[in-house]
């Protein structure tokens, strides 16, 4: 990923010396339930950060807070020095938050997201899945988008499935399609939300291989996963969460000998199976 600022970067206040992602005191409440209890986390450019923790620890909510799919109750999200804000809504003014929404849409395209349940578009072919964002968000012509989509599909090994409906793809292929769909928009940050959890065990490998390749290419990645082998191998930093807090973090090597009992028992519990 080149660090040369584009014309739009200056306009948006994006700066090359800013970290890829900065989360400041993120809190999230669902009613009275506190899911995120003041999270501070900075991710440098090119860094691969794996977030782990027991279910209900808030790791997915944190990830979804980055692109405002689940907007935090309070706290700040900064993406390359640009504040990511949830658009204001008004019960009376249909134009409220219009500018913020546009800005958020633009930022979201640059923060690719891959979901646990793939969420590929079932009414579109594999190629059209990738093309949609290119045409409707990036503003490419259909021809440019098709060419681009075919390259992205080839990169994830789905060149021969370009015309196929997602219905005939395996889980692993669907997830690779979802990765291609996100990568086509040239994201500078990729968010992975338990992307192998819904896959049959024999299909996990192909998706992890894709992510490994992406990490090696220098992509900034925020990965929520239970795949500890993958985490130890690919992560630059390992963040352990529990009950809405970051319990501890460090390099994968350091996390082999965790300081906290909660981290130790969590690692034991997932290595047990």
């Amino acid at each position: 990923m080149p660090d040369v600022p584009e014309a739009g970067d200056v306009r948006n206040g994006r700066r090359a010396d800013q970290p890829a992602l900065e989360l400041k005191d993120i809190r999230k409440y669902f009613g009275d339930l506190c899911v995120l209890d003041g999270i501070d986390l900075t991710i440098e450019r090119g860094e691969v950060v794996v977030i782990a923790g027991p279910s209900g620890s808030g790791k997915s909510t944190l990830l979804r807070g980055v692109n405002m799919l689940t907007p935090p109750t309070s706290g700040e999200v900064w993406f390359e020095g640009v504040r990511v804000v949830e658009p204001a809504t008004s019960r009376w003014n249909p134009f409220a938050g219009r500018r913020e929404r546009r800005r958020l849409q633009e930022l979201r395209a640059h923060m690719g997201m891959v979901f646990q349940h793939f969420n590929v578009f079932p009414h579109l072919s594999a190629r059209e899945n990738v093309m949609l964002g290119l045409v409707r968000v990036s503003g490419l012509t259909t021809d440019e988008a098709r060419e681009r989509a075919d390259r992205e599909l080839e990169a994830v090994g789905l060149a021969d499935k370009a015309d196929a409906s997602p219905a005939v793809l395996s889980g692993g292929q669907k997830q690779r399609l979802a990765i291609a769909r996100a990568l086509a928009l040239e994201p500078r940050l990729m968010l992975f939300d338990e992307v192998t959890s819904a896959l049959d065990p024999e299909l996990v490998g192909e998706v992890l291989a894709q992510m490994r390749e992406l990490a090696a290419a220098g992509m900034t990645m925020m990965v929520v996963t239970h795949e500890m082998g993958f985490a130890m191998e690919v992560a630059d930093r390992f963040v352990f969460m529990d009950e809405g807090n970051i319990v501890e973090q460090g390099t994968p090597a350091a996390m082999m000998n965790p300081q906290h009992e909660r981290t130790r028992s969590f690692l034991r519990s997932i290595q047990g199976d």
Partner: protein
Amino acid sequence: MIDYRLDWGLVTENLDRLMAGLGLLVVIAAFAYAVAMTLGLAMTLLRASRLPILRIPVAVVVEVLRSIPLFLFLFLVYYGAPQVSALVLTPFVAAVAALGLTGAAYASEIYRGALKGVDAGQWEAADAIGLSPFGRMRYVVLPQAFRIAIPPALNLLVALLKGATFVSVIGVADMFYVSRDISLQYFAPFELYTFSGMTIIAVTLSLAGAVAMLERRLDRTG
């Protein structure tokens, strides 16, 4: 029981008028269906708005339309419209309007259910690639919602065709209007009403059958 001889000759002699009446029923149902599906979609999109000023009035209109008996609504539109406005409707237009508006309320419910039937993950994926709310609706959600809506929407067509049999009450010369006309002339209601009734049942039944078949096929292709 009085001595009553069935004379099917009355039916065959007037077959052209009866069939024209049946054709009129089908045409009214078809026009009303077009109105219902278009207006229903608009209603649904307005009801999905986060602005109460758009959402609430439409929701009220839908509820009212769904609760008024069609029979009454036909009178209301045909005789009521000239009372409250300069609008004088022909029976045909009044029939299409009344049936179309009632149908729109039902279509709106169908679309609403279909929108809810589109997986939440699809909305999120659309958001995540940076689509606008309009783009999300237009390119991701609606195409999938339409597909979900096909079977209930076709059933609405059957319902509208059945509903169309009421239109003779405002003087549309449909099959039942023709039947009454002829039977009053010859004092022979049984043959004409039996024929008309059986015919419309045959038409709606075969339409319903076709819908069921299509539904099964859609289920198979996923």
